[in-house]
């Protein structure tokens, strides 16, 4: 009897471990991606950039002899208007190379033969990126709102709404970063493209469309403008203005100032987030480790 048992266990031995559910694997991937951010000092670097931005915004007005805005919403507006650029930097750091690095740096040789689905990897990495980014936004807005409370004596609710919009914009930017990362061949190229897309390309398209009298509602960086507009009371609405000096110049160009509508902006940001992520999954799933 014993002998039979032994032969069975010997020839049918399998790895005693069973790969966990996709959901728990998402958590594992996320945990180690965040550890990688911590170790590579990306998070620390980002905190340093935020500290610098906060310091400049807060220190320059008194140095110039100006006083701070005494309205809490107005106070937060300056800070909110820089959130967009921080998000672009964050998307570049946390998303731009997320996928492509596994291919270019050959770590995929280690990771892809593991019993883990590509969509699990994508989800874990995406959550790590957005998690890191949200953390950075909480820190930034936390300090800004705290300063506002301290200086104006009032807490800006619109500032919190701005934070929520910033989180949405960040999610969209990271998704686009993941899409770029899943198709590009090199990490540097992917990161530069992510950065340039938000910083110049979208801005140029927005500018050109505006001049041609068309509202660029479908450009996500235009939607991201809501992050600072929301802190203005009342919320600005699109309208015609005469170009030049406040409409005094004769023959000035007539042009429309466009302001994104909140509802549309939220829808556009969500659409960018979802569509880019789905496309990122499509390309990542098909991508082969050929180099």
């Amino acid at each position, binding site marked *: 009897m014993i002998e039979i048992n032994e032969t069975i266990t010997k020839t049918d031995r399998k790895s005693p*471990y069973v790969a966990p559910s996709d959901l728990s694997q998402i958590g594992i991937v996320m945990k180690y991606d965040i550890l*990688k951010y911590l170790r590579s000092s990306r998070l620390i670097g980002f905190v340093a950039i935020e500290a610098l931005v906060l310091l400049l915004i807060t220190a320059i007005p008194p140095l110039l002899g100006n006083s701070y805005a005494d309205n809490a919403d107005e106070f937060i507006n300056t800070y909110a208007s820089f959130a967009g650029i921080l998000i672009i930097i964050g998307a570049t750091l946390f998303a731009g190379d997320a996928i492509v690095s596994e291919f270019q740096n050959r770590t995929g040789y280690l990771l892809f033969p593991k019993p883990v689905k590509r969509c699990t990897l994508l989800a874990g990495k995406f959550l790590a990126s957005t998690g890191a980014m949200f953390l950075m936004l909480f820190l930034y807005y936390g300090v800004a709102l705290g300063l506002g409370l301290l200086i104006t004596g009032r807490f800006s609710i619109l500032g919190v709404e701005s934070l929520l919009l910033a989180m949405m914009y960040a999610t969209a930017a990271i998704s686009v970063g993941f899409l770029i990362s899943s198709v590009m061949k090199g990490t540097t190229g992917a990161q530069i493209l992510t950065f340039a897309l938000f910083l110049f390309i979208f801005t140029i398209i927005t500018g050109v469309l505006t001049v041609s009298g068309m509202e660029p509602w479908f450009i996500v960086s235009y939607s991201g403008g809501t992050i600072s507009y929301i802190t203005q009371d009342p919320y600005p609405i699109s309208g015609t203005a005469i170009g030049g000096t406040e409409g005094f110049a004769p023959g000035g160009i007539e042009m429309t100032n466009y302001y994104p509508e909140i509802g549309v902006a939220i829808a556009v940001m969500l659409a960018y987030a979802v569509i880019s992520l789905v496309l990122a999954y499509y390309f990542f799933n098909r991508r082969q480790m050929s180099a």
Partner: protein
Amino acid sequence: MNEPIRTENLTKNFNGFRALDNLSIAVRKNSFMGFLGPNGAGKTTTIKILTDLLSPSSGSAYINGIDISEDPKKALTDLGTVVETPEFYPYLTPKETLAYLGELHGMGDEDLRRRTKEVLEIVKMSEWADKRVGKFSKGMKQRIAIAQAILHEPSVIILDEPTSGLDPRGMYEVREILTELKKEDYTILMSSHLLNEVQQVCDDVALINRGQLLKIGSVEEMIASANVRRLDVRTLTETTESQLKEISQFKGVSDLESFGSRDFSLSLEGADETQADLLTGLQNMGLRLVHFKENGVTLENLYMSLIKDSR
């Protein structure tokens, strides 16, 4: 049908170039197969398909009978692998890397701690366990790669040139590890260019060229079928020219070469009996033999002739 590693009519095209052409190989349960072929033959391509790094143009690959394209997660659960020289996350330590990969396999804290210690000892990297991998040399990374392949005690192991980049001692140590694995119940497929290594550790070999299978079978049978073996001989005292000449007249002997005054090697055609006769013959000549040994390049000769034929 029940082989733990199997490919069926595997074909892979890269932009019109056919890297694999209807390749079917199977590795028997608990056997160790050497995977041979010249540069560009398609070994890495086959292994990449078996480890879900590439998808086949047509045909199928199975691990433990599970089609890798159909259910990769299930197929890869019981597999450990080293493909090419992988890179590691430079900011993580070997311990953290093993923890990451082990957790993905479902290993708990306790098992992870125990196995991490074990495998790092096996690959002699214990003292580096907590250093970041970023600055490791190629050979050190290769050792960590081997460690992660056996971490979760898989029953199927696929290795692509596991000794590449290792120093001579490293190669020796890996060969020791492989020999150990062989004693246990692992099923292993290993590509290699080191034919004496393959001859030493493998039960079977598959030889491919230009994506096609040339020969598959047991090492013993192949060597037997080659019917020619190369022998190294060392004598206690000097062997004279006339003695060498006499030896070259023995039955089946050809290509006699001497190195220094006490060493010579020769090719012998025939089976074990001819070899035994030769030994008796040498001793009858009054030669005192220090060693008389097959030098392990038999497989190499066979390899060369098969590759030449397929050119």
